[in-house]
């Protein structure tokens, strides 16, 4: 079995590279808590390239409008049809912002309607347990962002099953996890645990 490679999606619009430290941090956490054979470095893969079909999970983030080109949209549809999973995170930690508006519109157009993911979903129990649903981020808790805690993540699930195709977050995990993995030792509680759940879910469900 080939090793898991964390892939950051590169798209034509917006700032796809807004969180360059997240991949290394999540890779570090996957290695810390699991025996998943993980590559030590992430890759950047253009959504317009068929290369993106080779990765089971794609991480999409940004602050600016997210609009797919025709080629990107075709590839994403093919990717999801083949069982791939996308994790889309709004880096703005706000509500109704430009990324949120355009990304949700684009996801709906490309993959289907986003609905609130129940907090009892298997995503929250597949490795670490999160009984209250998605963990909150410091941006939500300190009120610096929208001063609003998003109670749910949203998702597009595969027709006929509960399997997540697109996981959408307004909680700005990209900021929460955007630090050097060596700094993790200063955290009393590892806030990247939920990232491990996403990886485990994408690989095993």
């Amino acid at each position, binding site marked *: 079995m080939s090793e898991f490679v964390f892939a950051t999606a590169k798209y034509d619009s917006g700032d796809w590279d807004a969180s360059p430290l997240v991949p290394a941090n999540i*890779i570090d956490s996957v290695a810390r*808590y*699991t025996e998943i054979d993980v590559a030590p470095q992430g890759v950047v893969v253009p959504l317009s390239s068929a290369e993106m*079909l080779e990765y089971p999970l794609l991480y999409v983030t940004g602050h600016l*409008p997210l609009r797919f080109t025709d080629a990107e949209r075709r590839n994403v549809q093919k990717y999801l049809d083949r069982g791939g999973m996308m994790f889309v995170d709004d880096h703005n930690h706000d509500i109704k912002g*430009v990324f949120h508006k355009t990304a949700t519109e684009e996801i709906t157009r490309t993959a289907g309607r986003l609905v609130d993911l129940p907090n009892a979903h298997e995503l929250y129990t*597949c490795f670490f*347990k999160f009984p209250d649903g998605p963990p909150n981020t410091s941006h939500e808790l300190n009120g610096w962002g929208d001063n609003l805690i998003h109670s749910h993540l949203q998702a597009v699930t595969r027709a006929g099953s509960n*399997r997540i195709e697109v996981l959408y977050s307004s909680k700005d995990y990209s900021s929460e996890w955007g630090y050097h993995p060596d700094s993790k030792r200063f955290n009393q509680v590892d806030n990247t645990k939920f990232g491990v759940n996403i990886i485990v879910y994408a690989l095993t469900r």
Partner: protein
Amino acid sequence: MLGGAVVVAALSWGAAAALLIYSMTGWAPGAIGCGVAAAAAALWRGRHARSTQRVALWIEEHAPALQYALVTAVDPRYAGDDGGARTEAAERALAEARVDTLVRRGVVRAAGPALLALGVALVLTVLVPAGVLRARLGGASLGGSAVAGNRLTPLRARVTPPAYTRWPAREIAEPSTIAALVGSQIVLEGRHDGVGVRVTVGDDSARVVSRDGRWQVAFSMPATPGAMRLGDRQYARLIVLQPVADAPPTVVLTAPVRDTTIREPATGVLTLAAEGMDDIGLAEGYFEYLITSGEEDAGGVQGREGRVGRVAFDNTKTGTMRASLQLDALGLKGGDLLSVRAVVFDGNTVNGPGKGVSETRTIRVATKQEYDSLAVNAAPPQGVDSAYMSQLMIVLATKALIKREHIKRPPLSRDTLVYISTRLGNKEHTLGQKIATILYGGGEGSEGGEVIPDWERALLDTAAQALVDAETDLDIAQPDTALGPELVALRALDKARKAKRLYLRGAPPAIVVNIGRVRMTGTEKPDAGPRTSGTVPDTLRANMASRFAAAVRWLRAPRGSIAWTAGVDSLTMLRVTALPRVGTTGNLPLAEALNDAVVALNAGADATPALVRARRVITGAPTATGTLPSWGGP
């Protein structure tokens, strides 16, 4: 004989009444009730035929010549008094009075009208569909079925497309498939009255009405493919409903042709142009713009949007949109992003309107400070940069030393001059080594290994040579002569550093996680919940294969049998599954193959080639693979 005639007449009247009532109302229980009542009435009316005395009186009444001989002969009161003589007298009188003819006439009078009524009722029942009277009077549904021929053939469908298409209505004779735009009004019409005709569209029953001696059912074309089931007594028929989706319009932004960056202040006019297309007709379109301002680190990104250039297309299949944006009026500031795209809508009022959007073009307004550089992250100076700075400092120090040397007061001692000059020479030596490291690699923090272009190598060689010359002069305390080579080296380094400057955003650090070091060192304990079972992949294809196999098994039964008909209907329903639904492409090759098979089967032709084609589409041709496929390659 008279009693039998009464029974036959009663049964005939009852049957005739039942058939007549049934043909008029179509209500079987009512018809049977009426028949029983009529038969009972006839029996009651002819009940006296069982009484010998009443029959004798009836004969005496119609044959006066008997002069009561028959009545007296059958009267029990006179049975003992010379009965034999009276009987003989009665028989003679009966023979003379031709009573046989009288009785036959009575039988015909009793049973004839009844049999005639029965015949008429039978003829009416055969010629007139059940319930015609109720239909004429608009009575309530009472159920029942026709005894006329199959009312499910021939059929005629009238398809009226949605009004927004402005397409004319069309008729389809004997349809096996009705393909029409979603929302089209369809009227299906058959012969005779519609009482007892059952029609379901999908899972819903459709209302059958009778008009001008024909039955009709009206419905809208659903959004998903389905089957229309028709039933009339033992007859049944399936019609496939194939909805045709109104494709959303498309639009191509022809101006601006590419993303661009403009300088602050943003002024002028931005010309917008787009070409829209639709399969039926465009309704309207406009340009949409979105201005995003601010930065993440400065409190977040804000957006504002607007629309310009709205155009009404009047249902044309193609349309051009043009508009312009006054950049001054948009109040763009440095760092803002202006995104524009074209949006068009079709006139679909049924399940639309369909929306088409173009690709987005982005116009960025550069800030005044970033005309020549976009660097935002501090980065250590490049090696040539630091060499230039070092050389500049040495040049300044050399100039100061020369100045001190030429100023007589206070005089500069020879030892001091040699000391300072030698120290500067050592610095030039160090700098020369640094340049050599850049050129040939080696040493900590060097740029060794970099591919140095020839032009840069030439400049650095010049600088290195000049540094050696300057060092030599400084080592013998001749700063005046050292200044020349120093300046040559300074100019060469300046040229090299300026030519090599890269105006890039600071690159993110490339972090390579040491997997071996961190593996399983996490202190948090996982607590995974039970794993739910996954779904069987491609269940749709497996389901189709199973249904197809079952249908083919049924087709082995004799043609026209119930099993054979079920097989044909199963293929028809499988075709419904294969037809495209909104947002999906369906399996058109399979749908076409199944249609060919059904047509061939109904026509009594060989359906094998079409069935083989269908099976091949479902199960796929067997292929050999050398190795297991990767996770999800293209």
